[in-house]
């Protein structure tokens, strides 16, 4: 039981690191994307907001917003796995994370987005699966959904260039 306070502190530090990491990306703030974490897996959340609309007559979320949301989810999942490893490593790497000095963001090489359903005016969610993280390139699949996890609104696969570590 004596482990509990330090474990709780470690979890709080991870939560704070994730918030700091997301805050570094201005475009995440513009869209209003937030990230929840369970272990090493992030769930991105995009609450509906009027400025995200692409078709005011339906209305529907702009396809570019959904595309951005998928891409940001993939990018953040990759960046977060690096940050998590740095925290675990401790020492200078963990101190850098604590200061908010993060490695450069992964850079998108290519993405393919399939739009399956129109994005309704309600909250969207997305999760990424890192299919392979090599030394230089990572391959990622991302799915976005709204009310039902089993009815995705869009899917993305993409290759990202990893920062030199």
């Amino acid at each position, binding site marked *: 039981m004596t482990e509990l306070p330090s474990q709780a502190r470690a979890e709080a530090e991870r939560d704070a690191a994730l918030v700091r990491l997301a805050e*570094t*990306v*201005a*475009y995440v*703030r*513009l*869209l209003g994307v937030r990230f929840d974490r369970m272990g090493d897996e992030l769930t991105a959340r995009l609450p509906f907001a*009027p*400025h*995200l*609309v*692409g*078709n*005011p*007559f339906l209305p529907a*979320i*702009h*396809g*570019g*917003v959904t*595309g*951005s*949301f998928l*891409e*940001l989810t993939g*990018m953040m999942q990759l960046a977060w796995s690096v940050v998590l490893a740095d925290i675990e490593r401790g020492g200078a790497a963990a101190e850098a994370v604590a200061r908010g000095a993060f490695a*450069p*963001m992964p*850079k*998108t*090489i*290519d*993405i*393919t*987005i*399939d*739009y399956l359903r*129109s994005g309704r005016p309600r909250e969207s969610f997305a999760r990424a699966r890192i299919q392979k993280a090599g030394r230089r390139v990572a391959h990622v699949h991302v799915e976005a959904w709204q009310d039902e996890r089993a009815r995705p609104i869009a899917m993305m696969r993409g290759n990202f260039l990893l920062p030199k570590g």
Partner: protein
Amino acid sequence: MTDDDERDRLRAAMQGSGISGPGGGAVMEGIPFCREIGMRLHSAKDSVALLSVPYDERLVGDPQTGVMQGGVITALLDTACGSAVMAAPARLRSTATLDLRIDYMRPAQPGKTVMARAECYRMTRTIGFARAVAYHDAPEDPIASAAATFILDRVAAEAGDD
């Protein structure tokens, strides 16, 4: 509302309010997200559309470099391809993206407007095929390229003619 009215409204929305401002073109006021990021429509006719997004610190993806987030380019290229499809010589009520593939060749330069030129190069009765490039000064020196397909919602009368 007749189909023609609806089509005109959507066309008007895609083409903005017609209010011109600095940088040429007109902010696409009719589409909330395009207005939010300051996306401008310069021209859309004969299956070709020219759009732009001016640099804005709110669109940055990496604070260390000040480079615009890739998602902004995604939104620009998606809208450009959709505008090119709507600008094709067909009576369309609307269109929706089916799939969008983007290759990022180099980062956009901080401080510079990103242009996009899109072309709808083929249309079937139900599908429009489009491609686009994003660039600063010349399409021959691209930041990113896109290939996209769109499902077409044709005006009923014409759909019956086919």
